[in-house]
């Protein structure tokens, strides 16, 4: 995917056209973003078929909600990725409690250290967040990443980690506060 195709400059005008009911514009947005969003669905669901279903739902949602996109509050990429994440998590939750049976310690957690190319752009948002997540203690980082990618509730996290609910809650809240402080610094 060419970087230019997913820039705000090229995607923002598409959103206004989609809100007006322009299918061609939705098609263009699809061309520019579908691989990324399919990746997000797969990352969360680990199931191709379900991810395909969810991806369809995501673009129908974008079609319906395009009039609510606000360029001053979010980039198009962030906005559509968040929809994909939320829809995939909805699907994961619909699988029922079995989906949460896995203990946190055994989850595969991306370590945030990536290609040399990514390291070169250390100033961008992703790397700042990665860096700040890395500054948290390992347990808190894992819990936050797990919650983000799986939509696991406090209750389920507490069960999985065999820790009291209040303790898990305070880990996350403290972690989030530190994260904010780090991102602002």
């Amino acid at each position, binding site marked *: 995917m060419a970087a230019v195709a997913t820039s705000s400059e090229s995607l923002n005008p598409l959103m206004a056209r989609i809100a007006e*009911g322009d*299918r061609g514009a939705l098609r263009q947005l699809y061309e520019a973003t579908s691989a990324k969003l399919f990746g997000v669905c797969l990352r969360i669901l680990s199931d191709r078929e379900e991810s*395909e279903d969810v991806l369809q739902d995501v673009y*129908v949602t974008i079609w319906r909600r395009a009039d609510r996109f606000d360029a001053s509050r979010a980039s198009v990429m*962030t906005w559509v990725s968040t929809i994909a994440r939320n829809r995939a998590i909805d699907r994961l939750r619909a699988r029922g409690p079995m989906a949460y049976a896995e203990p946190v310690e055994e989850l595969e957690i991306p370590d945030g250290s990536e290609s040399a190319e990514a390291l070169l752009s250390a100033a961008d948002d992703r790397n700042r967040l990665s860096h700040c997540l890395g*500054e948290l203690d390992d347990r808190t980082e894992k819990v*936050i990443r797990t919650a983000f990618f799986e939509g696991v509730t406090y209750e389920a996290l507490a069960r999985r980690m065999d820790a009291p609910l209040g303790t898990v809650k305070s880990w*996350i809240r403290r972690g*989030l506060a530190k994260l904010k402080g780090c991102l602002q610094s």
Partner: protein
Amino acid sequence: MSEAPDLSEAEALAAEHALGVLNARERADAETRMAQDPAFAADVEAWRQRLAPMLDSVKAIPPPSDTWARIERLLPANDNTLANRVRFWRNSAMGGFGLAAAGIVAAVVVAAQGPQIVTQEVPVQPQGQLLSASVVSQDTRVQPLFVAAYDPDRKQLIVTSLLPEGSERDKVHQLWLIAGQENPKSLGLVESGKAKVIALPAELLAKMSEGAALAVSLEPPGGSKNPDGPSGPVIGVGKLSRL
């Protein structure tokens, strides 16, 4: 990392909601609060922005080549004609009056003919879905005038007017539900700057589905004299969508 100050209770909740650790009941409460409390909604949005870069590290994987064709088949035939529908309404309701005149004329404006609503069938979603809408100005298409959240468990709609208190003067704001091809259903009057909880009767619950819309019209005191829809200009409209 140096010690960070604790988040305020409201911001902590916003962050938890963005992260996704709240249970179903708490999520519903948070969504309701977002509809009533713009500062809280902004906090949630800011946290979504903060956390979203985690998604950037996910590898892009092209979906199967027939996916677009399947999406296109799922698109509602003409879902985005809402603006046209409302424009039509406004024209039929306003008759010869200009929009500027509407702001001054306090007289009851009765449309010569009942509004005709040109719509496509809106697919009905299963009940039990949290929905929200941001009713934006028909003129700017951006400025939100009202926000609303529908809670299916409590069978209620919470609507908040974002207009300055007392700004309606000799007019009132009437809220409408537009679903499918039926005439708009009145949901009552909403005072400027106030939030209101509307208990929905059973016949309206089934119509609260994604793709239906809320609209707000400017009406004489007491509301529209037309039982089948607004009599005054429609100032804002917004589609209901899943959260």
